[in-house]
């Protein structure tokens, strides 16, 4: 059994990016976003056993660098579409832990008033338009949003996040084809953890690799090391500048390691379908450890990092408390929001 994703030498942990290095301020902002996603999910793991959070959670521990990195590069007004593994994406775009935990606890203060839950986190006012629990389903919707930008003469950008399993759905290819045909301003982001629930890529894909399969289409493609935030940022920036120079869709492929079970708060290495990473692999696959190392190498002190962590923990504490105390939507809410 191999650990997926393969470790790669695509990029080093340097601060280099296509248009210069990241400022110290940006580095700490990114650190905060990575930590926010990680600590929110660690908090869910702690709280989940209390059975108050009655929503299936697809935790993204290991995935965070891809949504955090991509979102860092997006121009104002970008609209994003995601999957059921959307926590880091929602938090990166909104920083709204009150709404986030409110929705997880099924309370009226959640963005979906408790009608959405973990799998359908959205924030249209912050550009997170839709997330879906059916694989591949938001991809064409994102393409439609990009078509609308083109139709309305807006120089907008749309990002579609999906997993490697989505590439096996027909609708992915239908959507990619249409976006390339119309040269839409859309960035496809494949978050590849090498697993569709519990089934590995080798058992599912009859082609050599996802980037190679996409390469004949009329779009810009790039691969990032998805566990490395700096690699994600570098490759995203590179793609966005290519899309600017030669208007065509972009396709970013990033591999990452899913540390937990497909759905639920536990590890599942004992189930035998994949092995536990060695401590050395672990350090390489954990985007938070990777980024902390890079931060230290570039002068970030332990004290500064601790301050960020404490501020995030405080924010999460307050939001969890508020969410637990918040009221549920009244029964009459059942019939609202069906039609406009």
């Amino acid at each position, binding site marked *: 059994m191999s650990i997926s994703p393969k470790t790669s030498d695509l990029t080093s942990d340097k601060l280099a990016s296509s248009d210069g290095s990241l400022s110290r301020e940006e580095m700490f902002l990114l650190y905060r976003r990575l930590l926010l996603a990680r600590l929110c999910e660690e908090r869910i793991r702690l709280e989940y056993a209390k059975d108050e959070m009655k929503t299936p959670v697809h935790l993204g521990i290991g995935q965070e660098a891809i949504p955090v990195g991509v979102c860092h590069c997006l121009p104002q007004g970008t*609209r994003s579409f995601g999957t059921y593994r959307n926590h880091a994406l929602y938090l990166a775009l909104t920083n709204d832990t009150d709404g986030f935990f409110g929705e997880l606890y099924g309370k009226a203060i*959640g*963005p*979906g*008033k408790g*009608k*959405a839950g973990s799998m*359908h986190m*959205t924030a*249209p*006012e912050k550009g997170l*338009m*839709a997330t*879906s629990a*059916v694989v591949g*389903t*938001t*991809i*064409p*919707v*994102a*393409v*439609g*949003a*990009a*078509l*609308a*930008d083109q*139709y*309305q003469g807006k120089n907008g950008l749309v990002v579609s996040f999906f997993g490697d399993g989505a590439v096996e759905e*027909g*609708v992915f290819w*239908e*959507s990619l*084809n*249409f976006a390339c*045909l119309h040269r839409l301003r859309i960035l496809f982001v494949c978050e590849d953890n090498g697993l569709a629930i519990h089934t590995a890529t080798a058992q599912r894909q009859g082609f050599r690799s996802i980037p190679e399969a996409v390469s004949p289409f009329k779009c810009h493609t790039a691969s990032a090391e998805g566990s490395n935030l700096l690699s994600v940022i570098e490759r995203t920036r590179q793609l966005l500048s290519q899309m600017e120079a030669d208007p065509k869709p972009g396709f970013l492929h990033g591999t990452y390691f899913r540390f937990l079970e497909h759905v639920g708060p536990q590890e599942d290495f004992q189930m035998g379908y994949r092995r536990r990473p060695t401590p050395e692999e672990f350090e390489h696959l954990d985007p938070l450890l990777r980024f902390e190392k890079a931060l230290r190498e570039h002068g970030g002190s332990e004290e500064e990092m601790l301050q960020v962590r404490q501020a995030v923990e405080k924010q999460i504490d307050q939001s969890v408390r508020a969410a637990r105390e918040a009221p549920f939507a009244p029964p009459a809410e059942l019939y*609202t*929001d*069906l*039609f*406009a």
Partner: protein
Amino acid sequence: MKSTMTYRQALALALQKEMEADSSVFVFGLDVPDHKRIFGSTAGLLEQFGPKRCFGTPLSEEAMTGVALGAAISGLRPVHVHIRVDFMLLAMNQIVNMISSLRYMTGGRLKIPLVIRAVIGRGWGQSAQHSKSLHGVFAHFPGLKVVLPTTPQDAYSLLRTSIRDENPVIFIEHRWLYDVQGTVDDEMKVPLGPPALLREGNAATVLCTSWMAIEAMKAAEVLAKRGVELEVVNVRTIAPLQDEELIASVMKTGRCIVADYDWAFCGFSAELAARVSHACLGRLKQPVERLGFAHVPCPTTRPLENAFYPSAVGIIRAAERMLGLRELDLAGESFYSYEQRFKGPF
């Protein structure tokens, strides 16, 4: 202004008027701008509005339906067209998992003003995959509006209303209705919801959808010759269903025949029968009768196909049974008059 036109012309006129009124309206789908223009129902749009607002698509029903949704939540008003409603089955994931639910799942923060037009095929060997109606299937899912116009006026007015609606509307058009002529008042507005009273009577109420309204009117004409007056009520919007007028009619006549253009089993006719039976229990002189497709896939060959579909004859026989009348000799009657106009091939 009032003028006489066919159903297909009424559809094209409605699209033209809405596209003139609102630049966010666009019409797309496979073969929408080709030389046949979806049996003429998109005629003139490409010439007047250009390829940006009237365009063809790849053969990708699911993705194109998702594209319509993405455009709708971005401030546009897409009209997506399928030359057969059967092809919508390829897009059910988008229709059912996304379009019907997305507004609800976002706590009401997104609006989804889109129309999906689809044509029901019949005759000339359309067989099992080009002949379904599916309106009951769509109506089953909360969050979708489902409209089936029968007359040219309804085709015109209800399509305009559907395009202006802020919600997803499935708009289903019977192929044979395309040749029906009628007077269309281009100022007339018809809201989604209320049924149309096509004929007043006192003997029994026929609740009918789509092409079955034509059959019901023929049945009423035949029965009127022996002094039996059917009341014909055309259910034009089946979801959300507005049933007050349907129930009021049955309360008046005391008898109800549901003639639905779909399979009866688990179909929309069962919903109507249940509502009428519940609301009119003490008033009904006979149990509600239901007519629909035979419970088999649609066969190709004409004799079997004729047996598959409900018809005016079936309505006449049902009315006779309910009223305790002997069966009239129908040898001298001319049925299927509209089918004679349909020469295929599609």
